[in-house]
């Protein structure tokens, strides 16, 4: 951090290692696209804020449709995250801690939803859980459970898309955790399950929380798989992103307000994540 030079830096020498010195070291060919990239990322957000109908904002927020979509979004994203935790954490543990043949293949499969276009995910879910799908028909005839075009369907679609984020984050945390703590727990009489719940999980809690937040954020913004698998029924499957898209066709200002809400929620998550886990010492 300190300048390794002879003597103390004087007032005259200081500018030399300041802005001019640094800017002089950056080629224009890199600086220009970098600034353009920054503008490109920030400008749409600024546009959103600039076009927000601030005067009528309170009324628009109070519209029942907005609140319904928001409530549904928060509910389904939270349920999807819980589902991801219940299924994803053991999966991450398996990938991180158990040597089994085909582990690399399993890890690759887990990450497929990350790169898969969400719409394709939605179609795939329909083919499996649809009324005439591989499992859907059986679920329908045996238990009378119908998944597509229901709120449960929304949760499934969101979980499908968001789970890889959680699995990857938690697997990384598990690999980074010192396994000797688990050995210490064993010497104190803790079985594998107790060790997992009482030692491993607390040790990887930061990674677990970060993964869960990422997962939740991804679920909150899910659009493609949701509209394909669960449709767009207000109050049942119409989440915020779907409502934004629909509002854009009829009432632009309404779409702006809905977008603003999602933006605020996203930034709040980012801020929380940064403060607590990303920049943590």
């Amino acid at each position: 951090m300190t300048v390794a030079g002879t003597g103390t830096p004087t007032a005259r020498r200081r500018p030399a290692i300041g802005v001019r010195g640094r800017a002089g070291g950056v080629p224009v060919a890199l600086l220009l696209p970098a600034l353009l990239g920054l503008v490109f990322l920030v400008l749409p957000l600024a546009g959103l804020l600039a076009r927000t109908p601030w005067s009528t904002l309170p009324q628009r927020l109070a519209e029942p449709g907005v609140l319904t979509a928001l409530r549904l979004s928060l509910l389904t994203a939270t349920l999807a995250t819980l589902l991801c935790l219940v299924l994803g954490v053991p999966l991450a543990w398996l990938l991180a801690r158990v040597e089994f043949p085909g582990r690399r293949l399993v890890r690759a499969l887990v990450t497929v939803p990350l790169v898969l276009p969400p719409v394709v995910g939605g179609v795939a879910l329909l083919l499996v859980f649809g009324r005439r799908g591989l499992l859907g028909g059986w679920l329908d005839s045996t238990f009378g459970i119908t998944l597509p075009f229901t709120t449960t369907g929304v949760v499934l679609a969101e979980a499908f898309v968001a789970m890889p984020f959680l699995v990857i984050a938690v697997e990384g945390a598990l690999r980074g955790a010192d396994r000797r703590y688990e050995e210490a727990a064993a010497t104190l009489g803790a079985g594998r399950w107790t060790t997992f719940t009482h030692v491993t999980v607390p040790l990887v809690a930061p990674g677990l929380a970060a993964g869960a937040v990422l997962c939740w954020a991804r679920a909150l913004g899910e659009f493609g798989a949701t509209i394909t698998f669960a449709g767009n029924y207000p109050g049942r499957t119409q989440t915020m992103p779907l409502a934004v898209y629909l509002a854009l066709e009829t009432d632009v200002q309404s779409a702006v307000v809905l977008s603003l809400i999602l933006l605020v929620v996203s930034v709040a998550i980012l801020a929380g994540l940064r403060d607590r886990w990303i920049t943590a010492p």
Partner: protein
Amino acid sequence: MTAHLLDAHLVVDRGGFRLDVPLRVAAGEVVALLGPNGAGKTTALRALAGLQPLTAGHVTVDGTDLDRPDRRAFTATERRSVGVVFQDYLLFPHLTALDNVAFGPRRHGADRRSARETARAWLDRVGLAEHAHRRPRQLSGGQAQRVALARALAVAPALLLLDEPLAALDARTRLDTRAELHRHLAAHPGATVLVTHDPLDALVLADRLVIVEGGRVVQEGDAASVTARPRTDYVARLVGLNLHRGRAEGHGVRVADGLVLTVADRLDGDAFVAFRPSAVALHPARPDGSPRNTWPATVAGVQRHGDNLRVQLDGPITVAADVTPAAVAALRLVPGQRVWAAVKAAETHAYPAV
């Protein structure tokens, strides 16, 4: 011979390295596994704890086989009556000192309240009652060590295992902690196995030393016999003796070509000769008219050693000699200097190397 609480023969094959250590420890006895780094001490400890399955041999505690590869019997770590103090303690960072100590009793079936009571009593015994609610990172090294000891003892283990329990401490803390550890180990009714590469830890804490080198036991015995009669260079260095192996005939032991050391003991056959560095005298020329063992040597190096200086000598045998700074100045001892070394027969100790 009394029945041993721990009766083990630890054989572990691990990629070219073979550990083969028989080990028996009576109830209330403290045995130190002493050896250089990489000797297999920690592997032995892990095998006793069930963290490293045996390739062959057995681990029997109180008559029950815990690990017996030939009968395909293996007891998981969590079902063994062991307590382990790990080298860097491994206190659970998310739990307070109290809950760290209560962890074991809780897993052994105590309810939360009585587990905490047990833990409180143990923290009290190690003098940390007022630190019960601190997290491990708020504890000093010495305090963490004591919490780790309390945590291991709180399950009343038949077998207490300590892996370099003092290695992570600074010199001052180590002194205090060593004395305190000695008190707790003496009070432990079960068998204790201590792994260390520090001879002082071993001499102070253990009733018996087992010296391990290259995965094998090279010497075994109580502190007095090991320090008086080292059998390998490693042990000799540990206890600060010059050690040479040779062939004895009466009072003479041929330790090198052309050098027969006259010794006080009388024996025949393969023998060790040991003498203290302070027993070696240095002369500028060959001392005559004395019944001493003398030989020409070359100074290889001079180091500070306590109040004196330790001179490393090359020659027919490599020897360390402790001399006063005044002698070094008078003899102008610098590397490469030729001197005569002398040792009185009465200052040597010879014993059979069988």
